[in-house]
């Protein structure tokens, strides 16, 4: 029973992954004239040289062969060669990924803390005017352009207050503002969902029953609200990952940091499709894997799903 569900779910994930690869291939490799041409025409190469290069990049082969060739490459970890840098894309990814992952991980941690803080104040805080005020904060956070927030933070903390040096920053100084920049917009949807969940759980009859048992407010939160309100936020993990990555790309551009963001920007600017295709497929793969993990983990954490399936 469990095995069949697992197989089904993994199959679905693979299907989406294959479709994503195909879409990326169609968008980037198949449809636009071809990038090689654009790039090397600018360099003033002769048609003979061009033909040679095209042959080397496999751009002359029929579409289906290019597709199979690229797909085969992705499956074996060969993401092609960057036209601009002339090095394997896999190498570029390996060089740039760690910095971005660190940034994203720190930002995610900060966003989670901020969201918990906001949700706590909005649902449990003392005064009702304070709760109302805090409830409007996530909408504001969502409305702020990431890049602008980054610039404003630099303006405030580096130029006005002088707290964070921009000339020769310490490692923590280099990361503090980018992390805050990404974390603020990411925290907003998390906080909104948390607030909604906590409100919903507090209105559940089982909370009234707990209070009728004599439970204090803190007891109700610890034993009844926490798990029921936090559990559904797991399903947001995939979407949040996508936003984290997008936020990191923009933020790295604002702060001039090296990473996936810088790589992406260069790839777009230079029409370096192999690089962009690899970034798209790898991040989609991460999205699919995260969602798969959440789907498989959820029944372990929620007894309703776990036992329900066993009973059926």
């Amino acid at each position, binding site marked *: 029973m469990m095995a069949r569900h697992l197989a089904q779910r993994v199959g679905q994930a693979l299907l989406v992954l294959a479709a994503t690869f195909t879409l990326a291939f169609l968008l980037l490799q198949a449809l636009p004239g071809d990038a090689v041409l654009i790039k090397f025409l600018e360099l003033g190469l002769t048609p003979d040289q061009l033909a040679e290069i095209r042959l080397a990049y496999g751009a002359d082969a029929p579409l289906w062969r290019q597709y199979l060739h690229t797909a085969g490459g992705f499956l074996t970890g060969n993401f092609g060669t960057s036209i601009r840098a002339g090095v394997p894309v896999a190498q570029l990814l390996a060089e740039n990924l760690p910095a971005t992952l660190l940034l994203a991980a720190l930002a995610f941690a900060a966003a989670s803390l901020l969201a918990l803080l906001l949700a706590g104040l909005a649902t449990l805080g003392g005064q009702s005017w304070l709760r109302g005020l805090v409830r409007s904060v996530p909408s504001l956070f969502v409305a702020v352009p990431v890049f602008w927030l980054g610039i404003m933070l630099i303006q405030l903390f580096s130029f006005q207050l002088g707290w964070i040096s921009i000339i020769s920053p310490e490692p923590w100084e280099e990361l503090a503002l980018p992390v805050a920049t990404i974390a603020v917009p990411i925290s907003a949807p998390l906080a909104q969902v948390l607030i909604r969940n906590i409100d919903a759980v507090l209105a*559940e*009859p*089982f909370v*009234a*029953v*707990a*209070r*009728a*048992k*004599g*439970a*204090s*407010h803190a*007891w109700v939160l610890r*034993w*009844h609200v926490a*798990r*029921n309100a936090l*559990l559904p936020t797991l399903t947001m993990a995939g979407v949040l990952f996508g936003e984290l990555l997008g936020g990191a790309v923009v933020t790295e551009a604002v702060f001039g940091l090296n990473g996936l963001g810088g790589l992406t920007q260069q790839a777009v600017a230079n029409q370096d499709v192999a690089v962009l295709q690899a970034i798209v497929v790898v991040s989609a793969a991460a999205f699919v894997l995260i969602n798969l993990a959440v789907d498989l983990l959820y029944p372990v954490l*929620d*007894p*309703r799903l776990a*036992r*329900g399936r066993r*009973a*059926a």
Partner: protein
Amino acid sequence: MTAPLLEVEDLAIRYDDRRVVQDVAFRIAPGEVLALVGESGSGKTTTAMAVLGLLPPNGRIERGAVRLAGTDIAGWPERRLAALRGARMSLVPQDPVTSLNPVRTVGAQVAEVLRIHGERDERRIRARVIELLERVGLEPAALRASQYPHELSGGMRQRVLIAIAVALRPALIVADEPTSALDVTVQRRILDLLDELRRQDGTAVLLVTHDLGVAADRADRIVVLRDGRIQEAGPVRQVLGAPRSAYARQLLRDAPSLSTHRHRPASAGGDIAVRVHGLVQDFPGRDGVPFRAVDGVGFELRQGTTHALVGESGSGKTTTARCVAGFLRPTAGEVTVCGTDVAALRGEALRQFRRQVQLVYQNPYASLDPRQTVARSVEEPLLNFEPVPAAERRHRVEAMAERVGLPRDLLARQPRALSGGQRQRVAIARALILQPRVLVLDEAVSALDVTVQAQILALLEELQQSLGLSYLFVSHDLAVVRQIADTVTVMRAGRVEEAGPVEPVFHAPRSDYARELIDAIPGRTAPQILESVP
């Protein structure tokens, strides 16, 4: 009277700027059962929750006293009240399905009340939880304790909640509609259990209910509320036997479980309007094993009469009715309506067949398009068949509205601006505008308050008389069926348990199940009470 355990005095409660309860006063002696009876919006639940200090955040006690064993706790801070709750007074809530935390085991939730009130010894807690679960009849208790709420039936979950309520032997239990979400046989067993436990422990009960029959069976005294005010109060015998207020008299008259009169004598009827034979309905089940919801059901409905399909949840009564109305294609068997074989109908023929049979749903709020006005809803069926000029349509809609007792000024409104009874009148008007011959009424009065229910039943009766309609009446409520049906089929788990004219089935049921079902109708003690009144 001994010193009262609970004494409510001059109570007034507000939600935001609206006063919902006022001038409410009553006393409960130790070990006594007091029923708070009323329709929706009467303030009965609010009053009960105020006793426990569990009003919603926008509610507050404006005036009055709630004295528990002589101490006024109405103004107590949350912390002091929390110490009383669970220990001195406890709650049995309305809906057992949502009243248990879905992600914690049953045992943990019973243990919780012990822990909150200071028990720390894990072994003692464990032993006490098992003992409590056994006491409420949940066996094997060790297994039940390790299960999650969704693994138990509604009745079993209510037993868990009762175990929690009696765990610390409180002096007062507030039971808020404790069985209104349960099937009638389960309801009876749960109320019996509650009765037994409170007798053993000498606990007083404040029983909140909309069902006068339940109050009659279980309470010592009754307080009738309406719009937040007391209409009538006194011992059960007095309230049922010699009600002083007009409202209490009306409630008594309208409560199906207490009234023994029929709307009209049973009629033999004319030709066969609906004939169902050997009906089987499968639904795709999990893992490819089909689930058989209806299994070999058959009955006949004669023109101008009412046939009732009665059963508890999962009996297949609604599925059967939906086959008759042409919404489900039977897996096997035949359904003939006015001479047409419904199972064979497809496409346009099925569409034309709709003029013969109309379905009225349990919840008119869900069956009326929220964006359409009443006039538009009633008119719509006319647009689906041969064209009727607009003026003629308007005329027929107005005539139909009048026919079902809808004031004309409601025609321009949307369903959300109507009361429950008005909405059901709209649904009936909409069903009748095509002049069908058969009306399938799927729990059509179950969601209504008793006084409104009585009005709708009277309307249905009158329409049947004047239009010669045939009704297939689906209901879980045997008391209503006894009042209005001519013939009845009692169903259980997709099969027919008993069938025949109403009188013999109700007075001398042959099957055990039908007898159990009929015995479980609340209010069965009422006739004795009424006879004993001089």
